[in-house]
């Protein structure tokens, strides 16, 4: 078995999706009109509110920021 190379592999990350705040299906960040339900993807509706998705998505966003900062500092 030979020596390891000095150049590590690199990749791109998946584009981020968020939940439509009406139907809770995934849409691209920044979407205004949901392509799935036709509603305002930014306006919180019952399904999104009752599922506590706002809190869960906020925690995921924090996790993403932490991961980015850790990578920059490491």
């Amino acid at each position, binding site marked *: 078995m030979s020596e390891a190379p000095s150049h590590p592999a690199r*990749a791109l990350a*998946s584009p981020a*999706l968020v939940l439509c705040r009406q139907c809770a299906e995934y849409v691209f960040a920044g979407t205004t009109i949901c392509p799935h339900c036709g509603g305002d993807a930014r306006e919180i509706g019952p399904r999104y509110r009752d599922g506590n998705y706002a809190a*869960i998505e906020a925690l995921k966003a924090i996790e993403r920021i932490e991961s980015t900062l850790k*990578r920059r500092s490491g």
Partner: protein
Amino acid sequence: MGEIELREGPRRRVSLADQLDCVPVYVVWELTLACNLKCVHCGSRAGRPRAGELTTAECIEVVRQLAELGTREISIIGGEAFIRKDWLTIIRAIRDHGIDCTMQTGGYKLSATMIETAVDAGLQGLGVSIDGLEPLHDRLRGVRGSYAQALRVLADCRRIGLSASVNTQITSTVIPQLAEVMDVIIAAGAKYWQVQLTVAMGNAVDNDDVLLQPYELATLMPLLARLHEAGRERDLVLLPGNNVGYFGPYDVLWRGPDRGHYPGCPAGQNVIGLEADGSLKGCPSLATHRYSAGNVRDKSIAEMWAEHPTLRFNRERGLDDLWGFCRSCYYAPVCRGGCTWTADSLFGRRGNNPYCHYRVLKLAERGVRERIAKIEDAPMQSFATGRFALIEEPIPNGQAAA
């Protein structure tokens, strides 16, 4: 979902940094192709050992290299991994290098004593295959008594205190039994249930009647959603395998948002597959002749991981590989055709995956559905693929998409 429920994930969960730095977080390692079952859907056509399987010393060197690359979990599989005489030595080496170790098994002839010694060696989790209720499971697994043994292994794990999950192949015949299968595995003490669609590879091409038709996702996915919700009430988490998806109305139930949405196939970006003779791929199940990056006996894993084109295809997230429906799909930049193995095995080409709920629903809006039909058999080799045609047809009267 009424309460906020954030689950602490396994160490193999992939972070953004893992994606960008291309860390091979999770490795699935076929320790041997020897197997004591004769599964009619086996993609690797397991049974006899491969010629030239790695020696114990070579296996330990593989573990050392993977640890250097940042691997956090190795799942040992077969064939049947425990048929190798040195399986405990390899488990111990994995743990000694700071890597989590789990094993996937059919459970046939895996005694309680063997499980205890594996736990002593460092095994942290066991995935047991259950493909239906007893008659169906024994028929699919090719050995009478294999169902009873799988359940006995789950009971042994519970008694010993080893975390046990259940893996179920979704074949054309199991769907009506899934609710009862769930009852059985909850009673047996399983906490996690991973389901995966049977893929058209190896023995499953020979026995293509076991394959689900893509349009059957219209009924399967609502059923899985119901089972997922019912399972949570009973302390069982139903998890979708990489080829169950994608997006659609139920994805948020089992993939997100706390787990993150489906990011596309991780093969070659955060996953490595190893065959028992040292062949290295981006996923354990991909066709060897199209996706092997070489052999660990000839090159370092780091060298292959950094450079080899058969490992790099998912990393730049390009859309050039996509074709058919997937090419123009709303989710194309994220999903990129879903599971590479599923599409590539059907058509000899990745990038167009008819086993997609979102796709099934979009096609149904036009009153059409897709089915597959075999046009070429698979050679009698491990991880061999045949060829299938994809046929679009009107949805028969009275059969609406769910």
